[in-house]
């Protein structure tokens, strides 16, 4: 562990390398996190199946490359397929748990996440998959820092998706209906908004965002049926830190989390990266709870 720290002193450019990799990775977390914040804020459901949507988007893109299609086309395709899946899951399951106790929806989406995990495992097998985008690598600072171009594309893609979402929520009719429902579902119903449809659309949009994030993940990194849950937990942490409905905060928290995680993986060893994510989750929850408790408020 200390040897790894010593490396930073010996080769300062490694710092830049690790930081850059982390930030580029973090941008993808931010998309999934924004989807989670949307569902949480509008429907009051914590969507544990988030990470599996990301993985599914990745596998769909991977499947396209098997058919000889360039993975960049996978972004819209995965988003469209996931939108349909999201709507179907809403009408099949989520709709029945929206107004129930939050633990019921937590457990129901947890069940869905196990279901999707195992379905992906049955369809695509338990191997780690990536999709080759055929893009090159940039070398910076005298070949000491390398940046995969696809990672930059993924990061920029993530930011563009975030921008599209903001504009959609602000300007479009449906986006306004979604925001109205988030503020007060009863008042929205009184004003003639079909909240059931708004919920369905919200859940579908969230799934589509995750699908697009997933196809960026499979191009720049890799997917596997069982690594969805870390993505869920990352989204959850980002939302907790940034707060609901705060997009710049979500992006910043996402980038920060990516960087922190990459440093942890470098210093502690890659086998502890996921452990770090989950420990960080607990630390964040405990810290936030102590802060709120001091003001005699509770996490509710």
């Amino acid at each position: 562990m200390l040897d790894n720290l010593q490396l930073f002193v010996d080769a300062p450019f490694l710092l830049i390398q690790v930081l850059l990799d982390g930030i580029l990775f973090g941008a993808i977390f931010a998309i999934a996190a924004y989807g989670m914040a949307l569902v949480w804020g509008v429907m009051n459901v914590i969507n544990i199946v988030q990470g599996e949507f990301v993985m599914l988007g990745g596998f769909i893109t991977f499947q396209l490359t098997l058919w000889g299609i360039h993975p960049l086309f996978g972004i819209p395709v995965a988003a469209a397929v996931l939108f349909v899946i999201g709507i179907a899951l809403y009408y099949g399951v989520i709709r029945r748990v929206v107004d129930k106790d939050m633990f019921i929806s937590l457990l129901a989406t947890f069940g869905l996440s196990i279901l999707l995990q195992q379905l992906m495992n049955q369809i695509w097998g338990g191997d780690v998959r990536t999709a080759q985008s055929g893009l090159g690598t940039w070398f910076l600072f005298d070949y000491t820092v390398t940046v995969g171009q696809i990672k930059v594309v993924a990061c920029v893609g993530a930011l563009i998706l975030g921008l599209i979402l903001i504009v959609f929520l602000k300007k479009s009719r449906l986006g306004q209906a979604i925001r109205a429902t988030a503020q007060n579902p009863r008042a929205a119903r009184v004003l003639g908004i079909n909240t059931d449809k708004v919920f369905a659309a919200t859940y579908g949009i969230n799934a589509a965002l995750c699908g697009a994030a997933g196809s960026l993940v499979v191009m720049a990194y890799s997917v596997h049926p069982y690594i969805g849950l870390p993505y869920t937990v990352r989204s959850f942490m980002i939302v907790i830190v940034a707060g609901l409905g705060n997009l710049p905060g979500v992006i910043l928290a996402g980038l920060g989390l990516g960087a922190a995680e990459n440093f942890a993986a470098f210093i502690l060893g890659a086998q502890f990266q996921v452990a770090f994510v989950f420990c960080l989750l607990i630390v964040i929850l405990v810290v936030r709870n102590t802060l709120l408790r001091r003001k005699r408020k509770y996490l509710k």
Partner: protein
Amino acid sequence: MNGRGQIILGIVIVAAALAAPLVFPDFRAQIAMLWVMVLFALTWDILGGQTGYNTFGNILFFGTGMYAAAVFQRDGGFDYFPGLFIGMGLGALISVALAAILGSMILRMRGHYFAIATLGLGIAAGEIASGWDYIGAGSGMSPPLFPGAPGISYIFFGYLFFGLALITFLLLAWVYRTRFGLALNAIRDNEDKAEAMGLKTDTYKIAAWMLAALFLGLCGGAAGNMLGFIDPRDTAFAGATFGVWMVLMAILGGKGTLWGPVLGAFVFHVTQEILWTHLLGWQRVALGLIIVGIVVFFPQGILGWARTRWPERFGHRVETS
């Protein structure tokens, strides 16, 4: 169910449980696992059902007990049985200490924040265990071999787990009737009011979690020995199987009741053993479907359903007009 009915039912179950491994020698392993499942569901229900704090992370104590016992057996230098029992005790002790320390941090959260924090705990433990060389890292650990003929170990562990489950059940039956049990129920019904009435809710919650950790730690230590191999993610900290089953069994039977978790464990384990062999490869897909199905369509559980169907049998007076 009235008092005498419960006692008769209890005697019948004890007699059947004592006879079962001798009558069905082919199913000894499954019978032993059944008692582990009963322990899972009963201990989950202390916090999940009675106190209203749903945890996903009780598997943490099971895995901790498993590893602690195996490490003690490896490094302690005792014979098999003293090593096993001291190891189990040590595992339980560490689990209870963990519950006290972690509980004092995360049990102060409310509702679903607590649920997600415990989910993180269980998985973090599995990930740490699979990266830690001292306990075998990702390749797991093998506890020492059971002395004696191969078939005997399941009889021994079957009775051991039955004894543990029985003690847990009787203890909980007593605890739920005391002031402590009432305090837990008060926290479930309305924590703010309970606190306003002067109950130290945090202390009660932590004590309840420690009680669950005690029995899960004991159970884990013995379970590692019975299974013969400890895998960090698939047996010790198996959040996606054992960890979810606990919740599922308690909900299926009827959470917040004494008999519900036992009933749920029986129904779930028997169904699972019958179905599993026919579903090669698709078991976990089925598990996901079962979770969603139970949670969405049957959240009140078997006993909860029976209680609304025949309220008189549960001692509720029904006014008929």
